[in-house]
């Protein structure tokens, strides 16, 4: 039996730039040219003012730990419990779900508001996931 694999995202026309970005080692967000709102997940218009004039830009990759669970059971395919499912607050404003690497998956090690930085993990030749690790320095 094939080993169960981690759920694999399938890009759409509206999200392709994000997945091209992670593959190139960039975390890409979008900013509205009309009202400067920065938003996520990707879409070709501003959810704040409805303008279709929006730009893709490279985010700093810096953020803080907003909240998380440490999942024990049931574990998702491709994951070995216990593992943290985190929501990261990016410096630019939006939040996104991710995992925290380079750090024990314990309440003691995972302190809310700790500084994090993005790191990239290739899932296969097409898809690279944005993960986060404790910020250095």
């Amino acid at each position, binding site marked *: 039996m094939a080993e169960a694999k*981690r*759920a694999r995202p399938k890009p759409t026309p509206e999200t392709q730039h994000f997945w091209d970005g992670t593959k190139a080692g960039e975390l890409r967000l979008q900013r509205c040219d009309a009202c400067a709102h920065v938003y996520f997940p990707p879409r070709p218009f501003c959810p704040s003012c409805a303008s279709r004039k929006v730009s893709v830009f490279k985010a700093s990759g810096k953020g803080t730990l907003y909240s998380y669970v440490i999942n024990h059971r049931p574990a998702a395919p491709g994951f070995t419990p216990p593992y943290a*499912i985190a929501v990261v607050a990016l410096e630019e404003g939006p939040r996104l779900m991710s995992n925290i690497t380079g750090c024990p998956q314990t309440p003691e090690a995972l302190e809310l508001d700790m500084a994090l930085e993005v790191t990239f993990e290739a899932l296969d030749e097409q898809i690279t996931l944005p993960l986060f690790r404790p910020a250095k320095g």
Partner: protein
Amino acid sequence: MRRNQVAVVGAAETTELGIIPTMSQIQLHADAALNAIADAGLKLSDIDGFATAVETPQQICHYLGITPTWVDGTSVGGCSFMLHVRHAAAAIEAGLCKTVLITHAESGKSMIGKQPRSIAPDSLQGQFEAPFGVYGPPSMFPIPVLRYMKTYGITHEQLAMVAVVQREWAAKNPRAMMKDPITVDDVLNSRMIAYPFRLLQCCLVTDGGGALILTSADRAKDFPQKPVYILGTGESVETPMVSQMETFNSSRAFKVAGPLAFKEAGISHADVDHLMIYDAFAHLPLFGLGDLGFMPHAETGPFIAAGHTRPGGKLPLNTNGGGLSYMHSGMYGMYALQESVRQMRGIAPAQVPGAKISVCHGVGGMFAASGTIIFTNER
């Protein structure tokens, strides 16, 4: 919507609750529907409006043999039935139909005739949540909890007390799945599911269903059961992605739906005799008490820990035992509505003496949607 123009005249759950290996999901719908029809003293042919969730209206109408002139297939998760009640009340007032049947059923445990829930890999959830190891509600719904605890100073013991108190209510309900008393230590020593939540802070997984029948308040007096009037209603949605909520300190959908219902009902919080807050997980009653305006969020944990929501307390909450101890087939909102109706009829197993106003607040998805219904037994 105008107050008290529409009433619940039929209400019933499936004949059995819990583990029902003898019925498929659509038969559970039918079982609940037939029980509600009997409760209201009606025939199926009297039904001209129909609403359900997950299953389509055409599926259940065909199975039951109903030809409706108004249908609502709103399916926003476990609070869909609160939204159905709101929509049905508006439809009856507008003259689109006279007698509405709302059904819920789920073969949540036995999984007979039930489509498994799945997340498409090209949906936003499939791209931006599923790859990070979320796997069913226990891994998703508690994600805001640690932030909420830090912001408001809520403790693990207070969150454990939610389960302890609801077990006290469940002990009074013969149909509750879990009736044995539990302590805070029992909760905090139960199996870890998704830190910070343990087994006893997560809802049950069961089979069952329920159905409601609504008609105009003017007709309601001719029915065999004591009418339960719709005093106020509210609804909203926020996001299907828990990670994209505006804040983890509150639920926007709760904050829209709840106050809307209170405003429509024209009541204050002090008027509330009985309260149901959909408790798929132990933090939901805290979010509900705060977002519906009963008290500041920081006071919700201490309020429950002090025993104010337990039997004999000043604000009886989740008096059937809730999703944590009564039953939870996957979409618990219908059972919360059933308990509110029983309390307003005065026939609940753990009846709140003299209760006249009941607030029933539901959640759909992981804070994705919300519906609030305020009932009264006085017109």
